[in-house]
């Protein structure tokens, strides 16, 4: 009996449990992006994911007494959960509308794999991320190691998202949520990063959003579609 009991996993403290739950929420939002068929929902899910990361930053700030992180949490919420979604929606207004209704866009059938298969592939990739990070043995003073594994899984799953969905919007959102994964990693391994650096990263993101928005508009103007399948013919 004692041998069996030795194999059990002790409960984490309520704090690290809560932090892990938020981190897992970020990963689940990433998986949710596989299924979204509407441009608007895709952007909303990104905003929800960004809010979760801000919430985690506030938890870390409050429990580890890092007041800089409050500023970062506020800035990242304002930028990633409010400004970026608004800018994206502005840039994409009227694009890809079906039958004149701007809420419906043609990103629905852009899966290279079926949703269930894509999720299975992503689970495998996420598991790879989990085990690699565990093998590195990185320990963080502010957050439990699980959060780090989850953040690496978020980054890898964002790559899978960009690969299996063949529409420009999902690929842009995949790229932006990849940045969310990087923010999460930064929060775990380098919570004490100077604020000026973090802010520089955040404003870099804004540039990326504008570039992506323009790319989407140009692509849609040329191809009359959100699908990237048309680009295959450009191969030499």
């Amino acid at each position: 009996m004692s041998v069996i009991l030795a194999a059990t996993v002790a409960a984490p403290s309520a704090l690290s449990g809560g932090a892990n739950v938020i981190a897992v929420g970020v990963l689940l939002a990433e998986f949710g992006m596989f299924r979204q068929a509407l441009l608007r929902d895709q952007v909303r899910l990104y905003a929800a994911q960004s809010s979760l990361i801000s919430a985690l930053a506030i938890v870390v700030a409050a429990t580890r007494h890092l007041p800089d992180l409050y500023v970062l949490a506020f800035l990242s919420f304002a930028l990633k959960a409010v400004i970026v979604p608004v800018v994206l929606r502005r840039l994409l207004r009227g694009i890809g509308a079906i039958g004149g209704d701007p809420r419906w866009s043609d990103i629905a059938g852009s899966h290279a794999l079926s949703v269930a298969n894509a999720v299975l592939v992503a689970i495998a990739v996420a598991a790879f991320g989990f085990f690699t990070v565990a093998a590195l043995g990185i320990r963080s003073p502010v957050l439990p190691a699980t959060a780090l594994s989850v953040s690496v899984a978020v980054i890898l799953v964002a790559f899978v998202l960009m690969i299996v969905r063949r529409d420009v919007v999902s690929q842009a959102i995949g790229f932006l949520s990849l940045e969310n994964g990087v923010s999460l990693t930064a929060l775990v391994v380098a919570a004490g990063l100077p604020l000026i650096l973090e802010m520089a990263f955040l404003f870099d993101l804004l540039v990326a959003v504008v570039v992506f928005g323009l790319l989407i508009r140009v692509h849609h103007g040329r191809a009359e579609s959100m699908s990237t399948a048309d680009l295959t013919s450009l191969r030499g």
Partner: protein
Amino acid sequence: MASTTVTGQPEWEERPVISESMSPALPVPVVQLLQVVTVAAAAPGVSGVISRVEARMQGRTGPRVLQPYFDLAKLFRKEALAPEGSSWVFLAAPLGAMVCYLTVPLLIPVLTTFGLPLGYMGDILGGGFILSLASFLVATAALDTGSPYAQLGASRAKTFGAITEPVVLFVVFTVALVTGTDLPYALAATVRSSAGQIIRPAHLLAAAALFMVILYETGRIPVETHTGTNEFGMIEEARPFEHSGPYFALLKWGSAMKQLILFTILLNVFVAPWGLAATPRIGPVALAIAALIGKAALLGVVVAVIDNSFAKLRLFKITEFAAGAFLLAVLGVLTLYLGGG
């Protein structure tokens, strides 16, 4: 981890200490019998609550909460017919399935926090096997009828059952990693032991995955319309198509019992293992019966809300639903394995 007492005995194996000061104690076998009777008697009522709440939310008056009991009483008085060419399997299956559903409440914590005699014979997997046996018997009877509709339902139930099975396995793995056993009593004791056990992601993910499996197993909305007209999308509901009279009543009662058994496992093992009797006394046991019915009715309201807020998935999209549940269960095991989530 299951906390252990001074004697080295895990907490969930603790035998109740009976003193003479409080309300009289029931013999333990009687409590065990009460578990079965509670599930059997309350099951149609829980179905009644769900359909009543669902109707009220749609602005209809809806059937009485007690309507399923009247339906069963009516069906038991009716004549039973078997399709021509069907064998004894057709008539034996409802009885066999009912026996299975009466056995499972002996093994799971319906009313008590301590294990009852033979309660440790079956772990969560054991209970799952008995439930699968019941579903297999019903499917066999459906095949025996030769009716294409019942056969379609049975074949679909088995196909999608094979997809949800891995989810259940991963939920059991999570339980095993958390408690070191897969006895339902052990997990309930662990959940009660501290707040850290409740908000760890592995626990929440496993509970959510199990809830999704229960929605599939009880034929609720993202997967199947539970009540109403016959349609091509039916899975579980199509199987008893050819049964009639008392046999049909047994199948209906059995599926209501299966629903309450699954609700009990979710509530008393994963989500809310409070209100259970720690001693076999009349007072706590009566309280436990009331608590179980109250909790099951509350969960029924949640299920009714889901029934009313989502559309039925197309048959070929059910794999997406199962993939979602599988994702939750696998993430639960992964977070546990690495870093003790």
